[in-house]
C-alpha cells in the first residue's frame, strides 16, 4: 500500500472531497445494457465510472443436491482478469476473485433472486443449473456492487433453453424467462480513517481500512453481508454503514428498473 496516497486520500476526505471530485456518498454514473452477448442465455454490460463489467448467464442441466431434490442450483463465478487492471496476475483465481464471486453469489442466493423450485425438471433426477459469470473489462474499483448489478440484469435478461431427452438443445432458447423473483442489490461501504464512502475507485480500495457489503431487497430487508479489510468496526460504524447502503440501494434499484 502507498502510505502517501493513503494520507492524501484521508486528508481530502476530511474536507469531504474525493480524488475524482465526488462527494463521499456519491456513486459514479451507471450505464446498463442487456442482451450484449449472443452466445449467452442472458447477458448484461454495466459501466460505472471507468469500471466496466460483462455478466453472462449459461444454463445447464444436472442432478440436484441430495438435500434439495426439487430445486435447481446456481453459482456465480468471477475472475479478476489481468486484461482489466495492471495489478491482476494470470493464474488460478486468487482469494480476491473468489471473494467477489462468493459475495455476489450469496446476495443472489440468500435474497432468493431465482426461484429454484421452478428450475426442477424431475424431482431427485434432473434440475437446471444457472451459471452466472461476472467478468471485468476495465477494473476501477467496486467490482462487487457493479458485478452484482450486472449479474441481476443478466438474470433478468435470460431465456430458458429447450430440453430434449434430458439434454439441453444447444442454442435453442425459448421465450420463457428465467424465474427471477427478487433483486437483491449489493452495496459496499468503505471506511477510510473516520470516513464512510461508497463506490470506491481502485485507488480508494487500495487504502481502505474496512469495508462492508450489504445485499438489500426491495423492502430494505438485508439478505447477505461481508465485512472486509484489516480494521475492526464498531456497532456505530455498522449502523451508519447499513443505513448508507440501504439509501444507496434505492438509487441503484431505480437505475436498474429503468434499464430493464
Amino acid at each position, binding site marked *: 500500500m502507498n502510505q502517501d496516497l493513503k494520507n492524501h486520500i484521508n486528508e481530502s476526505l476530511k474536507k469531504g472531497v474525493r480524488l475524482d471530485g465526488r462527494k463521499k456518498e456519491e456513486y459514479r454514473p451507471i450505464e446498463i445494457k442487456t442482451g*450484449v*452477448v*449472443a*452466445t*449467452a442465455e442472458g*447477458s448484461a454490460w454495466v459501466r460505472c465510472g*471507468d469500471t*466496466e463489467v*460483462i455478466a*453472462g*448467464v*449459461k444454463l*445447464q442441466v444436472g442432478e440436484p443436491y441430495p438435500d434439495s431434490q426439487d430445486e435447481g442450483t446456481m453459482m456465480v*463465478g468471477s*475472475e479478476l*482478469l*489481468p*486484461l*482489466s*487492471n*495492471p495489478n491482476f496476475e*494470470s493464474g*488460478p*483465481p486468487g482469494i480476491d476473485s473468489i471473494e467477489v464471486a462468493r459475495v455476489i453469489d450469496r446476495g443472489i442466493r440468500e435474497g432468493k433472486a431465482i426461484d429454484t423450485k421452478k428450475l426442477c425438471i424431475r424431482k431427485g433426477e434432473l434440475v437446471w443449473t444457472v*451459471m452466472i*459469470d461476472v*467478468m471485468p*473489462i*476495465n*477494473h*476501477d474499483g467496486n467490482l462487487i456492487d457493479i458485478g452484482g448489478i450486472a449479474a441481476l440484469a443478466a438474470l433478468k435478461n435470460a431465456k430458458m433453453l429447450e430440453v430434449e431427452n434430458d439434454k439441453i438443445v*444447444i*442454442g435453442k432458447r425459448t421465450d420463457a424467462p428465467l424465474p427471477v423473483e427478487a433483486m437483491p442489490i449489493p452495496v459496499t461501504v468503505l471506511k477510510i480513517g473516520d470516513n464512510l464512502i461508497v463506490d470506491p475507485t481502485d485507488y480508494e480500495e487500495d487504502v481502505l481500512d474496512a469495508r462492508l457489503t450489504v445485499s438489500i431487497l426491495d423492502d430494505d430487508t438485508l439478505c447477505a453481508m461481508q465485512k472486509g479489510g484489516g480494521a475492526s468496526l464498531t456497532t456505530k460504524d455498522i449502523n451508519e454503514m447499513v443505513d448508507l447502503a440501504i439509501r444507496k440501494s434505492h438509487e441503484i434499484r431505480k437505475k436498474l428498473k429503468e434499464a430493464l
Partner: protein
Amino acid sequence: MSKYTERENGRGFNEPRPIIAKAGVIKKADGSAYFKIGKTAAYAAVYGPREMHPKHDQDPKTGVLRCNYNMMPFSTEERVKPGPSRRSKEISMVTTKAILPVVNLVDYPNAVVDVFIELTETDAGSRCAGICAASIALADAGITMRDMVAAVSCGVIDHKIAVDLDGPEEHLHDLDVADIPIAMVPSTEEITLLQMDGKVSKDELFKAIESVKPVLKHIADIQRKALKDRYK
C-alpha cells in the same frame, strides 16, 4: 463443381463478415482494442513493457512478447470452464508468434509486453479476431511495429474457397470443410500464422492464401482507421 453454392445472407465467397474495430477501450491498459467480426468479439489489453515475472523468463537481449488468449465462460453455446486449456495455451502461443515478427522490443531488455485477449462471444474465427485486436492494442500502446498484423480464417468447403467461415459453416456435416486461419503482414505479404484442419489439395491451399490477401489488406485498413479514430 462444389456442392456449396450459396452462403448465408447472400455473403460473397471472398467477403468477410461485418467488422467493428475500436482502439483505446480499456482505460487501465497501456493500449487496448475491441475487434468484432460477425458474432465473434475480442477485447485485447496491453500492459508493458514492464518487469518480467517469473524472472527466469527474462531475456537480457530483448523484451519478450507474451500473448494470452482466453474465452469467457459464456462466449460459446456450451459454457467454457474458466482457466487455461490445451486449446487456449496453444492459441496463446501461435498468437504470440503471429505478432512477434512485426514488433521491436530490443529497447526493453528483461521486460515483458503482456497482451491479454478475452473473447466475449464467439462464432468461429476467434483466434484471428484475437490477433487483429492484439495488433491494434499493441500499436495503441505505442510499441514499435513495422506494420499491423491482420488475420482471417479461410475455409475450403467441398473444394470451394469461402473466406471467414462462421460457426454454422465450420460445422457443416454433409460437406467436407477445411479451415485455414491465416495471419499476414499486409505490406510485405509475409505469413505469420498458418494452421489448418481438414483436407485440401496443394492448389486449393494456394488459392486460399491468394483469396485472403485482399481481405487482410482491407482488415489492416480497418485496424489503422480504429487507431486514427481515437485521436479525432
